[in-house]
């Protein structure tokens, strides 16, 4: 009995170890040494310009409502939040990413207008909240209501799109590590957003990056608010489970 149980136990452990973070490759590892040096040094990482702006916005009261800090306390209390988003909101019956979550707070509690996903104020807040989770494993809930959202995202990830008729998986899984022109194709993980892309010369969100891929395969990009976008964000988070949060990342 004992002799038989041991190989089973080893097999179970192996199966658990297989999708571990060690085999996943953050885009950081595919970036050049100069770009990695920018990300490693908070004084040289331009993302921290937004982080500082976000920390100030956290304390500031918008007209007609309380500041973020009035309900949530110091921003350090947000440690771990970015690592578990996108998450399901049972009260509203929908899945939310951090951008949507902040906009719900803004409209319902702060009587402020919602912010666009690429607005500087929004990027500043998501960067300031995200940096509190830096180094933690990205680990979102994958059970219950999130399972359906993630499954939808997985289906989209494997669906051929656009005039080039390519799915996300064809580049970011089958050809990850190969080159597209001069650039290494990364595995397409979502652990460093919002991130500073030298190409953009600004901080940008994951939906912005996904839209760039969609126009790249000549598909019609989804707006940032589309449910498809959220499903793909959730799937990417689940797919990159265990990778350390790098917010604000720097990429070429």
């Amino acid at each position, binding site marked *: 009995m004992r002799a038989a149980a041991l190989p089973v136990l080893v097999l179970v452990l192996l199966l658990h170890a297989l999708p571990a973070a060690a085999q996943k490759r953050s885009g950081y590892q595919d970036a050049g040494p100069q770009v990695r040096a920018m990300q490693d040094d908070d*004084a040289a990482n331009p993302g*921290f*310009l937004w982080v500082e702006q976000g920390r100030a916005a956290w304390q500031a009261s918008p007209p007609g409502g309380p500041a973020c800090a009035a309900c949530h306390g110091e921003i350090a209390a947000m440690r771990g939040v970015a690592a578990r988003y996108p998450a399901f909101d049972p009260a509203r019956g929908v899945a939310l990413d951090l951008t949507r979550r902040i906009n719900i707070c803004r409209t319902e509690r702060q009587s402020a207008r919602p912010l666009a996903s690429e607005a500087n104020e929004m990027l500043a807040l998501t960067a300031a909240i995200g940096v509190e989770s830096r180094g933690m494993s990205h680990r979102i809930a994958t059970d219950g209501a999130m399972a359906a959202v993630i499954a939808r995202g997985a289906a989209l990830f494997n669906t051929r799109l656009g005039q080039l008729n390519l799915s996300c998986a064809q580049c970011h899984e089958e050809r990850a590590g190969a080159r597209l022109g001069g650039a290494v194709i990364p595995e397409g993980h979502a652990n460093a957003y919002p991130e500073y892309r030298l190409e953009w010369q600004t901080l940008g969100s994951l939906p912005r990056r996904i839209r760039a891929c969609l126009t790249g395969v000549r598909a019609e990009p989804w707006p940032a608010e589309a449910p498809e976008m959220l499903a793909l964000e959730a799937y990417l988070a689940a797919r990159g489970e265990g990778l350390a949060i790098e917010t604000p990342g720097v990429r070429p």
Partner: protein
Amino acid sequence: MARPLVSIPKSVRRGDIFDIRILIAHPMESGQRRDDSGRAIPREIINRFICTYGGEEVFRAEFFPAIAANPFLTFSVRAVETGMIVMTWTDDLGASQFESAEIIVT
């Protein structure tokens, strides 16, 4: 211009060389781009940066349109006396941003 991120050691030994590293948020609009309706977007860049240490100019930089947004500068200074380090960025609109830090020389 927004508030810059400045990295200067609090104190250094006399005669030692220390690094000043600064990052400032600025679009550095080159003047070469056009907007969606085809009109040229006017140039708006930081064109000058000056750093003084104890009132004496120790570093000056001229910026040109090919410099990326949110420019980062790093340079080295030799510690002589305790004093103020004052940094000034000036852009095409004539707006200036000042930042200062005291360095203690032991």
